[in-house]
């Protein structure tokens, strides 16, 4: 278990202010925040690269605030992998075991085992520069995991990857977490990572933790305007996905949504408010999801307004003031919500 209490650190342009977090054993904990929120500094302070100005860090009941990084039992994986370019992948993964004086045969065995788990055992003889981003990421994670760290720190592990690789890699991260049972602290500025991976999430802003909770709590009841704006996906629903006759339908209890995903089972789905079309009449279009409902809220918010339409589940849409006037939308009026299957972002739970 990781416990961070009253942690403050000032470093260059970045500041952490009174950070308090508790990450449970085997938990997958995500720290969400925009670039510049101080997330990486927090990870590096947990790893022991920087000494905090104030506060304590406790790992499994032991105060490690002043402990050297090498003795903390913390694994660190940076966004840009940081594989040692002058060593082979095998030497990179075995680097930590070598420091601990493990005998070469045992090192080779452990490296093989972890590389097999991450699916890179055929790349062990190569140098980092010849690997793709996804392969380098697997190697970097192997290098940290082979030491069986008490806690694995992941710094934006998915943001350097292209979209397809990123989706695949999310699933692998989840599988690795299940297989090893390692406690993970993962920082990101993609809320998709939260849906797909997190047991709990902390939202950071300007060096402060502004909210901690399950993804559901944070997305449904954002504690601050900032969290609401940053998380962006206000239409977050849980349901069961089934593929029938080559079509994916997600049952939300009240209504069924059609999507372009191939994920089956318990899912979480999100739709951005700007992708929800509101109309007074049903209309013919390529958008496959259309539901009748009642407007329950119209709220002015800058140049855009939030409109909530209750269809069995509440959908939030963002409209300009002109559109609201043109459609004559107001609380209690009937309206249709329409959105494309591709606007539905689906995450396996």
């Amino acid at each position, binding site marked *: 278990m990781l416990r961070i209490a009253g942690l403050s650190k000032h470093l260059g342009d970045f500041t952490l202010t009174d950070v308090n977090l508790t990450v449970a054993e085997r938990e997958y904990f995500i720290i969400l925040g925009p670039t510049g929120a101080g997330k990486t500094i927090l990870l590096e302070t947990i*790893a022991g690269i920087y000494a905090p100005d104030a506060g304590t860090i406790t790992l499994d009941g032991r105060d490690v605030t002043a402990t050297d990084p090498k003795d903390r039992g913390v694994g660190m994986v940076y966004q840009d992998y940081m594989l*040692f370019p*002058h060593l082979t992948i095998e030497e990179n993964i075995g680097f930590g075991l070598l420091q601990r004086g493990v005998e070469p045969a045992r090192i080779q065995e452990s490296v093989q085992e972890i590389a097999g788990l991450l699916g890179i055992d055929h790349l062990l003889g190569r140098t980092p520069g010849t690997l793709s981003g996804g392969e380098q990421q697997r190697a970097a994670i192997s290098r940290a995991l082979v030491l069986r760290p008490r806690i694995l720190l992941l710094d934006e592990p998915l943001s350097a990857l292209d979209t397809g690789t990123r989706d695949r890699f999310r699933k692998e991260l989840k599988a690795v977490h299940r297989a090893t049972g390692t406690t993970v602290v993962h920082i990101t500025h993609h809320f998709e990572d939260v849906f797909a991976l997190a047991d709990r999430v902390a939202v950071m802003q300007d060096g402060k933790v502004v909210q901690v909770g399950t993804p559901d709590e944070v997305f449904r009841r954002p504690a601050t305007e900032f969290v609401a704006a940053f998380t962006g996906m206000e239409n977050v629903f849980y349901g069961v996905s089934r593929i029938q006759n080559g079509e994916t339908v997600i049952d939300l209890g009240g209504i069924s949504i059609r999507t372009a995903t191939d994920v089956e089972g318990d899912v979480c789905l999100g739709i951005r408010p700007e992708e929800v079309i509101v109309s007074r009449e049903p209309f013919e279009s390529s958008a496959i999801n259309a539901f009748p409902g009642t407007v329950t809220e119209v709220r002015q918010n800058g140049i855009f307004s939030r409109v909530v339409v209750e269809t069995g589940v509440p959908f939030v849409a963002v409209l300009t003031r002109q559109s609201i006037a043109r459609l004559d939308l107001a609380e209690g009026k009937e309206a249709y919500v329409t959105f494309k299957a591709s606007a539905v972002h689906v995450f396996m739970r």
Partner: protein
Amino acid sequence: MPPNRDALPHPTPFRVLFLAVLFGVIAYMAVVIVGLVAYPPLPALIESLTSPEILFAVELSLITSAISTTLCVTAAVPVAYALVRFSFPGKRIANTIFNIPLALPPLVAGVALLIFYGPSAFGQMLSRWGLDVVYTPLGIIVAQFFVNLPYMVRITRSAFEAINPRYEHVARTLGCTEWGAFRQVTLPLAKNGLIAGLVITWSKSIGEFGAVLMLAGATQMKTETLPIALFLNMSTGDLDLAIAAAVILIVISVVSLSVFEHYSGTREVF
């Protein structure tokens, strides 16, 4: 296919003029240098190259430059690393101080060293311990070290700057001490920059004249490095020996510069 902008078939007056100046300057430099090498008849050049005085100068230059370069590297590595990685009060000033000797004429450095190791209290103390720097071969090493250290620091600094500190951070979470991370990760990654710096520092120390002249003097067969040999024989009118020393210096600079370029890429140094 779009026309290749760099191809020559469509010369504009602008391009012709600039290229003409370029090739004119290259031709000028080549003629001057080759003219020096080709000036003496070959047998005379070979005879001068194998004369005892030139052989002595070569040996003295090699020994002193090897020692001063070793000292430069030994000092420059921690200095450059600290300048790059650590924050400390006066860091900007420290960086500036290492740039001063680049602009300072070596003659001035030589005079300063002469005062420091000669009549100053420190110089007197060394002298009482039997350690004479002024007008001795030891002075050559001291002068070369002092003048060339800033160059070595600059090259080493840019080599360390190019290494992301996160490599060291990762190494430390993987079980390295600060020393271990430096030795196993930083030094291997800085290797090419360090080799480039070593070669150029060595080459510059072999060619160092002004500071050596001031501190070690120009005593024939005693503090006579290659540049000093060139100077002494020039002033006594012994042109063949002077040219022999010059030819060796030319060969050393050409070879070391190509080694430097090979290892440094196009890193800016001066």
